[in-house]
């Protein structure tokens, strides 16, 4: 029996929906897509006859240009808070 193409198409859509609706992370999908696109652009740029390397690497970068992200500050604050609380918790016998 010939299975109609629409069957496969509907299955494919269904599987895609299951992944995306239940567990597939949009942020990771975006990151992977971004990675693929960037690697393709990198490869393409190297075969262009007119391609020239970027301008010279800066000799020095001022340290004050570093700004911590909100994520790292939040993460480190949580770790500090946990460590401070843990100093007063000495339970359990081994």
């Amino acid at each position: 029996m010939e299975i109609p193409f629409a069957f496969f198409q509907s299955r494919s859509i269904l599987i895609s929906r299951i992944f995306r609706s239940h567990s597939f992370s949009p942020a990771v999908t975006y990151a992977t897509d971004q990675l693929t696109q960037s690697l393709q652009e990198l490869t393409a740029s190297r075969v262009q006859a007119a391609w020239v390397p970027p301008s010279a690497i800066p000799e020095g970068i001022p340290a004050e240009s570093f700004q911590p992200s909100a994520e790292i500050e939040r993460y480190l604050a949580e770790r500090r808070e946990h460590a401070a609380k843990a100093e007063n918790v000495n339970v359990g016998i081994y």
Partner: protein
Amino acid sequence: MTFREAPGQFLDWLDTRSEVGFSNFLFIDQHFGSHPVLRRIFSLARQQGYRSLLLEKLDESSCGLLLEENEALSIRRPAFTGSEAIRLSFWRCAPWQPAEAESFIGYAICKTDSFSDSKPGRFVYEAVLTTARRKEQNNFVHCARIYDVQTQVGRQSVRGVLYAQQNDLTSVCAHVALRTALACLVPDADVTYAAMNRAIGVDHRSRRVGGGVGLSPPDLKAIIAQQGIACHELIHEPGHGLTLGTEFQRDLYGIIESGWPALVGFELGTPGSGQPSARHIVPIFGHSLNDDAWTPDAQRHYFGSQRSCFSSENWLSSYLLHDDNFGPYYCLPRHFLGRDQFRIMLGLKPHVTALNAHDAEAVGLEYMRWITQQIPATGCDWYDRFSIFSQAGLLVLRTLLVGRESYIEHLNQVASWNGTQIEGERIGRLRGMLPERFWMVEASAPELFAASRRKFGEILVCASSGLPQPLNLDLMIAVRLPGILLLRDSARVSSFQTRLDWHTPILVRDPA
């Protein structure tokens, strides 16, 4: 004198080949009361092709440690009447054949204590066997030690991790776990229970252990400190309002990958069942890896993880441990012990660090993001790939504490696949500004790390200073990436081009 050094009284040297009909089970049933841990030890010896078993009896008069143990036992249990200690050593050669160095698999001490008011107690006081699986089988034990054993057929050496079993009278699970872990680090490669008990005031009269009475976390830390060892502590006690926000495995991996052991304590039974729960603690000293692990990608893609990098711990398959209840060299699958059971991790460190591996990795990742913002591309293919992976949040990070000389040796060895090495002048410049020890956060890509154990480069993070609030560049020491070396000085980060513009091997310690 230890059980390894004491001259033994020869009892027998048995042919244990299966083709002559020797049965481990029957022998242990007949002579050692069907002891389960001995069955495990004998099976490990069989796995390594043992062909003979040397039996020697040890005596208090020539073994000071046996005398010390028995004196403590007689205080703890006045009904104690004496003990028998047998040294069993395992050989790949047949009996009475010249025992070559590679013939020796290891030894075990079986101690049987007798009492006037109860049945004898039998346990494996200690055992050291070589590891059956090595790095060729993706098993990594970074903190094994070499033990010399004086037997009736000559002095032999075995490289392994010391295993010990509690007697539940003068030692409990915490003692034996500590003994294994401390033995990995202290100069003598062993610590006595008497020394541990002295450090915490267990004199077997006013303070006793055993029979359900164990050691508390402050006891454990006091014993570790008394040996001059530093400790990274991680506690998860949801019943006391202290919940760990991250998985303990990340911190555990940082300790193990740096070449140190750790103790992991957990709750037994079913949490929340209303029953009072007992606890157990085990020493962890190695790990296995799975190059083809599905979990790193699957975790991120299918289960909603928003992580912005992969830790190399994602490719870890099992932790390697001893459990005094069962025997040496078991594998603990990653995440088998979850938050419901895990309660404490004590990572032993021979050096004090203000920052632990997990936090150093987070700081290293933050610095890498900043670098790729400042230098998004250099025209070097592999630097530009690094930058792309970093910006996409898909770097693999591996963090370990390294010494200056060990790192410089690594730099002198690394080369690209076409043989290009980093310039000596660049290494010299770097050496001049390195502290004695620091965290090295290696950066790689999933396929690069898992398949070929190579990396884009590494960032060196200060281990002796605490975290600045807010985070700034004070902890950055240097960064080496394809074609570029970045060195931190007082007000800026200086860059230097290098001819090494490819990926390079990760730093490999010498595993057992």
